[in-house]
């Protein structure tokens, strides 16, 4: 902020009024502005990616409204209430996941949806927040760094929902949920010995995990190694998205002018592969701008976590902020051909309701945790 420009008294009054309002609503102005900015950027890109389908654009617009409303509402919930709620939220989520496994709807070949008559939703979305809440709840009652027993319990808390989600099959969400729980563990002071040991065990587990993967999931990993081997099928996505990004150059082909995107060479261009549309139409500059936006959100979120008053708040806030970054880099890595194709949307930008709303709920919780620190001074 350039304070020299605030010489005019009316401007100053408006600014301080705004600050007061934000404080009353327990919101963080900087984080909120960044979220709004990235969301608007997303809407801008989606307008181009959606092509003739303006209905899709409007429905995303509406979802953004719902998301921010939820953020503001959740920011009003006191932190001790969130803490109290954590085990219940986790249990309910787990039960819903079990129900989905036996009675869920099948959409796009995977069993993820639960139909409650009025609304259909994916219980795995609840878990994106319930798992870090549960982990933070468990750890805040115990002295940190966590003992071996605590680590084992956390591991169990994480692995149950992750296994259920991976079996749906929804590998992308399963990875994100696992990451959110593991981040809590690492932020809670997991000893570097365990950390390195865990990485080693995971490396050793790759052949075992390979055995349990679905055929299409294996195909995706193989395709990453050699996209041309399956140019008509799974490799098609990666080849086309890299062509889109690469052909965009530094400045891009211009908004609404990406030939890959607009001629429909690029699949899933308004959902999982929208990152490629940005790369093609807005170029390297567009991608860097988005990356900077993301980094700001993560940085601000982590900073807010540092200021929280107790272990629960710190761990949960840190996990929400850092998991957000995992989202972003998994999607960007997939679209740029660094990671296998897993169905993870680009946060705040991809079309798709549940993902956006869940993210906003997380940031609402983050703001609540941050604001609650002031109550005790």
């Amino acid at each position, binding site marked *: 902020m350039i304070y020299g420009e605030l010489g005019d008294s009316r401007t100053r009054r408006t600014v301080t009024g705004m600050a007061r309002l934000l404080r009353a609503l327990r919101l963080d102005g900087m984080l909120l502005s960044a979220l709004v900015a990235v969301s608007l950027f997303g809407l801008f890109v989606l307008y181009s990616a959606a092509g003739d389908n303006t209905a899709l654009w409007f429905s995303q617009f509406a979802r953004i409204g719902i998301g921010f409303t939820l953020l503001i509402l959740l920011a009003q919930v006191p932190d001790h209430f969130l803490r109290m709620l954590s085990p219940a939220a986790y249990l309910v989520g787990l039960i819903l996941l079990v129900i989905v496994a036996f009675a869920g709807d099948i959409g796009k070949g995977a069993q993820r949806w639960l139909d409650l008559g009025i609304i259909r939703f994916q219980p795995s979305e609840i878990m994106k927040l319930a798992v870090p809440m549960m982990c933070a709840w468990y750890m805040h009652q115990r002295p940190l760094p966590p003992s071996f027993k605590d680590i084992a319990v956390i591991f169990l808390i994480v692995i149950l929902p992750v296994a259920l989600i991976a079996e749906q099959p929804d590998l992308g969400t399963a990875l994100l949920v696992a990451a959110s729980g593991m981040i809590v563990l*690492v932020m809670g002071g997991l000893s570097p010995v365990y950390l390195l040991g865990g990485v080693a065990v995971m490396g050793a587990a790759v052949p075992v995990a390979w055995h349990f993967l679905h055929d299409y999931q294996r195909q995706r990993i193989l395709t990453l190694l050699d996209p041309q081997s399956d140019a008509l099928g799974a490799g098609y996505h990666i080849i086309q998205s890299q062509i889109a990004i690469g052909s965009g150059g530094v400045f891009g082909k211009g908004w609404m002018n990406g030939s890959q995107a607009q001629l429909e060479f690029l699949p899933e261009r308004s959902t999982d592969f929208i990152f490629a549309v940005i790369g*093609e139409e807005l170029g390297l500059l567009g991608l860097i701008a988005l990356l900077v936006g993301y980094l700001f959100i993560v940085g601000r979120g982590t900073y807010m976590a540092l200021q929280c008053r107790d272990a629960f708040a710190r761990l949960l806030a840190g996990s929400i902020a850092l998991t957000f970054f995992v989202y972003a880099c998994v999607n960007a890595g997939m679209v740029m051909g660094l990671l296998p194709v897993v169905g993870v949307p680009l946060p705040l930008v991809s079309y798709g309701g549940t993902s956006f709303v869940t993210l906003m709920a997380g940031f609402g919780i983050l703001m609540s945790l941050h604001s609650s620190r002031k109550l005790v001074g």
Partner: protein
Amino acid sequence: MRRVRIKDDALEQRMFIQRSLFAVVIVALIALLLAGRAFWLQVVQHAHYLELSQGNRARIEPLPPNRGIIYDRARRVMAENTPAYQLELVREQAGDLEDTLSRLVRFGLLEAADVARVRQLTLSRRSFEAVPFLLQLDDEEVARYAVHRHELPGVMLETRMARHYPYGPVGAHALGYVGTISEDDLVRVDRERYFGTGVIGKTGVERAYEQVLLGTGGYREVLVNAEGRPVKLGAGADAQLETHEPQAGRDLRLTIDIELQRIAEEAFAGRRGGVVAIDPSNGDVLVFASLPSFDPNGFARGISRSEYVALTENPDQPLFNRVLRGTYPPGSTVKPLMALAGLENGVIRPEDQAYCGGSYSLPGSRHRFREPKRGGTHGAVDMRRAVMKSCDVYFYRLANTLGIERIHDSMSRMGFGQPTGIDIAGERGGIMPSPAWKKTAFSTREQQVWFPGETVIVGIGQGYWTATLLQLAKATALLATRGKHYRPRLVRALADPATGAIEEKKPEALPSIELKHVENWEIIVEAMVAVTTGGTATQAARGATYSIAGKTGTAQVFSVGQTEKYDEKEVAERLRDHALFVAFAPAEAPKLAVAVLVENGGFGSSAAAPIARAIFDAYLVKAPQ
């Protein structure tokens, strides 16, 4: 001694700060990696990707497999692939799809009624796929396209292999046809396998053996410019392009004898009906004719709405497969089977005589079941004479003695009331009535009661009993082999054109019928021979150099199926009985079993039997043995 750990918030906070710093470093590193990857793609490799995307880009062009060729039993080609021009539409190149479609209509390349179908078709495929919509263009249409080509972006004239049926309507109901893949078809097949393939088997053998005939598609990469036209770069660029050769589908060898089929169809002389001829020794179907037929080439070419409507609204129903799906009362053709059931159940002996006074009444009832007008009275008849003269009274009495349950059991064993299991889809099973069946077929209590009178008319193949021609031919083959039984089949072998490997299909034996008294077979066969030598079919069998065992029949027509108006003569014609004839020959060593039905043909002896005779003559006398 165990040290008790206590929560130390200051320590935890310090640790959290330390961990946060660690996390921030990791985040920064990953962000750098992502930015670096973007830099690599967008700056370092930019020219390469730009070339791929803008000026020239590699497009994947499908190489559709050759569909398997279908031969008849003598290796005559019944379905082949011939080069033909077809029009294809690529949605992403068409610009405004609606505009393109309306232009196609204006230039006479598409019927207005077909626009919706082509639109659906195009939208159901991926935007870069070429969707064939007019399959076999004639010279005039090619010329018209050439004139308007520049006004039709995204519409391309391609030479592709198209399905051709050299015999046209002959045998069309057995062979079936291919047509453009509809959205419904895409639901039941693997879409990827049809990349570049425009047609799919719709009925008959073409449908039942679709997966065998289809083959495996290949593809090649071609460089195309922004408008999608293929371009040539240097040899270096071409070398990078991949080609995967397609694999042709397997050829089929049918059991059909197409020349015999043609003779059978011509013998109908324009009348409606159907005929099945089966080799009793293995279930091979040599003739499978449903008339009137239709030209399957129309469908392979991409039938227009108006042509299709003309076929479906034709009162003669050329698309209706009378052999597979027509269910008719079998009439007197079942009398030999009824006689066999009587003998086996021990309720009659061949020499037992019954008096035929022209009508039959159940004990205690005054209702008279009559002989048909022309039969009159037969006097005292034994079994042989009853079959030979087709005496209804004898069989009314026999049916009443046997009772419906025993009739139902015997006839079910011979295949009535259930599909024969022929290797094409859509077959109907007809009805073999019984009190149990009546309970499920009717809803009210009064309708569900089985009356003794209903048993009586089942004795002459009327009442609720309906059968398909396939069932009648199969039951006749069963008499011919004296109890041996095979599932009828249309395909006898599959051949791989690449390797030349031939997979012969074994005849599929069904449980054979074992009689308690084997001599009963000969008693029945002898009675059927009598039918053609002095009985009801004498005229049709006159002069034959081999012996025929047969049985005539007529099936009553209860009502005119259609509500359309016909002139009076026409209505009278359509109310006439269906003529039936079943036979096998030579009677002592049967080579062929036949079932014929002529719709509204009147009597089986005069309308249906000569058709069977024509088939026997062609197969047994003229054909080299």
